[in-house]
């Protein structure tokens, strides 16, 4: 069920009413949330519900076992079981074909010709997200940062909670589980904030991302025939397509959760206004970057073991972060570019002789954006060859007029993109997060702003595509 569908609107209104009717009984409310979350997921494919249930069950039991074990070795063993079970499922469904294919290609290089080892496997939607979510639970318990819950319904609800089930934000158990286990009270402020964030999210997704996406799709589906200008323009638009698509999804998720009395963490904070890649990763997909930092980078030793190990850790984290996005070498290269630049930034920061570069700080914005843009080429291209071809064409410097498929699409793209960027500028200037944008608004102001957004959506929305991050 897509957030931008009529199905979801009907589903959510029904859940919202029933949910607040059961307001006085926490258990009933949580059962309703769990069942509606499973229904939400089953709308896409009911067969894969079993994976979520198995994953939830394993970690519910293992969380208790880890907590109950007094010996470190035993705790480690149970954590290992959790890691193997969760990452094992993820590997089979998401990475089996990638590794099988890579193995066959490698074998060809050495003159061996094995049979095709790939299988027809459907990628269960949201598996990358809920796997990370459930892992954070067992790892936090292992680290003595969190106590396991005894309430199975609460835990299962935490894993399957529909606003964040299929594309995040990846909520930690220590943030979300206590909210699930506590009585929720209807909060007027959150209601206002939620409504505005949902509509802004919808605007970002179905107006901005989908409108500019049509041009990107044309160019990237046939990269070899276009000139440098067209590819640069498409890559520039893609940078904003993916940002507005995914931040839009997160906005709807955060807003929806707020209407049900839950507070999620911020997932995007104006990432293109970053003057370094390090800052970019503090603003982009925050729930993933902080997950990778806390559970991978720090587990590897972080920056505590010297500068060389720090570089290694950064590279491993970003390579695996890239691979998390998709089972393709393009994502690995995308991660590698980010890892290299992050390491380079670390080097610059650690070298006292290069302190004078701080004065050139202002150059950080365009440099960071250019690096991010360059890396997006790998992220968006269908395969490595297409990415290579795109880069080759760009460096041919054929800056003749870009390909214009449909002039009205381009004009619409420019207008809606400008609205999106100007709104982000406004948030930056006012130093307010979208999450709190509507906090002090009166009911009348909410109604007027909501009506303006609805109106803009009505006249500008584009035929909807799937959210980009669903494929991850």
């Amino acid at each position, binding site marked *: 069920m897509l957030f931008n569908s*009529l199905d979801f609107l009907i589903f959510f209104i029904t859940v919202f009413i029933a949910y*607040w*009717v059961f*307001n006085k009984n926490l258990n009933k409310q949580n059962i309703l949330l769990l069942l509606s979350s499973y229904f939400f997921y089953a709308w896409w494919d009911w067969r894969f519900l079993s994976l979520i249930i198995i994953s939830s069950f394993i970690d519910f039991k293992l969380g208790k076992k880890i907590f109950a074990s007094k010996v470190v070795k035993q705790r480690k063993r149970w954590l290992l079981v959790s890691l193997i079970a969760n990452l094992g499922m993820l590997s089979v469904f998401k990475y089996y074909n990638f590794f099988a294919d890579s193995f066959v290609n490698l074998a060809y290089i050495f003159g061996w010709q094995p049979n095709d080892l790939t299988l027809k496997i459907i990628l269960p939607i949201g598996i990358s997200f809920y796997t990370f979510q459930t892992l954070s639970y067992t790892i936090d318990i292992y680290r003595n940062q969190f106590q396991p819950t005894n309430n199975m319904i609460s835990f299962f609800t935490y894993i399957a909670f529909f606003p964040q089930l299929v594309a995040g934000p990846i909520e930690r158990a220590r943030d979300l589980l206590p909210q699930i286990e506590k009585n929720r009270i*209807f909060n*007027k402020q959150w*209601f*206002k904030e939620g*409504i505005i964030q949902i509509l802004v999210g919808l605007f970002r997704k179905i107006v901005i991302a989908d409108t500019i996406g049509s041009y990107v799709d044309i160019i990237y589906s046939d990269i*070899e*025939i*276009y*000139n440098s200008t067209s590819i640069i323009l498409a890559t520039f638009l893609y940078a904003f397509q993916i940002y507005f698509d995914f931040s839009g999804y997160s906005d709807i998720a955060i807003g929806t959760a707020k209407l049900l009395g839950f507070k999620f963490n911020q997932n995007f904070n104006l990432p293109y206004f970053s003057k370094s890649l390090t800052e970019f990763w503090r603003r982009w997909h925050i729930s993933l970057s902080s997950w990778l930092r806390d559970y991978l980078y720090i587990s590897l030793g972080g920056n505590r073991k010297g500068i060389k190990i720090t570089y290694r850790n950064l590279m491993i984290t970003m390579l695996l972060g890239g691979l998390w996005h998709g089972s393709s070498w393009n994502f690995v290269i995308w991660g590698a570019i980010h890892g290299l630049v992050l390491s380079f930034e670390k080097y610059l920061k650690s070298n006292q002789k290069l302190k004078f570069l701080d004065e050139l700080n202002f150059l950080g914005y365009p440099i960071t954006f250019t690096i991010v843009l360059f890396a997006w080429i790998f992220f968006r291209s269908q395969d490595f060859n297409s990415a290579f071809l795109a880069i080759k064409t760009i460096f041919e410097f054929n800056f*003749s*007029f870009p*390909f214009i498929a*449909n002039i*009205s699409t381009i*004009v*619409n793209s420019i*207008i809606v993109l400008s609205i999106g960027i100007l709104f982000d500028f406004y948030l930056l200037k006012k130093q307010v997060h979208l999450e709190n944008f509507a906090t002090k608004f009166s*009911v*009348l102001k*909410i*109604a*007027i702003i*909501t*009506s*303006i957004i*609805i*109106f803009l959506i*009505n*006249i*500008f*929305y*584009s035929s909807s595509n799937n959210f980009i991050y669903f494929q991850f």
Partner: protein
Amino acid sequence: MDFNSLKYITKTLILIFIISILSDRIFFSVFNKISDKVLTGQTIGKLNHYIQNKETLDLIVFGSSRANHHVNPINILKNSFNMGMDGRKIAYSATLIKLLPRNKEQIILLHIDPEAAFSQDYLGNDIKGLSSKYNRNDIIKHEIDKLKQNNLLQNLYWSISYNQSVLGILKNYFMPNYDFTNYFGYDPIYVSENQKKIFSKILQRDKKISNCQDRFILNKIYNDYIDELIDFCNKSNKFLIFFTSPKFDDKCKNDNHELRKIFKKKNLNYYDYTNLFKENNNLDYWKDETHLSNKGAQLFTKKFAKMLKLNQ
């Protein structure tokens, strides 16, 4: 939930509903007035132009971009108009034909692409191109509803009728694209150097394996509309002719053949020009593999006009 919260939610939602509906209706009525005056541009001007002149025309061309860019109607008949539009198929065209007057003799040239006609994926969504008239024309509303291509919310928010077309309408209201009194609906393609390069690159590439259909069952929507048009034309003094315009290199021949058989069975006039330039092809005739340049289109129109005159 306590009574106060319930009251708060109700109050907020009612206020949102009232203000959004009110602003929607104001926008809709103002924009209707503006858009009705727009007679240029593909967004709505061409449609308005057609609606305004449809009762006086002697010949009208319908179909997709391949009709729009390939047939210059005044080279066939003086009082004529090309109502072909990018991405439009039979649902859009048939609905516009149904708007024609009952008692005026008119020739209708309807472009048809065999692969589209046999595609079972076609759902008639090109009819959405008429949604700007959804709340203003009963025939159009009926056809859109019949194909289930209406946005349910459009019954609530009428401004959805102008989705994606506001800027185009405003542009053409303040700065008309051309003099509509000298416009006959034909939009010639003048191929730029960049487009020529792109087309050459496409042709140089390894030829993709053609995915030709092997099941030739006419799409239900196509079949129904063809039957409805036969009926409508018989009762309304219309002479209906189907045609397929040239392609650079058509790799699937069977669909053309099967379509010809179907039209024969339905006793319909059908001219298939898919391979018109096969023997004496020239890159200058083309923008891409399915669209003729102005040069190619003029040649095709000449040939088509001659054929029509021979058969009159």
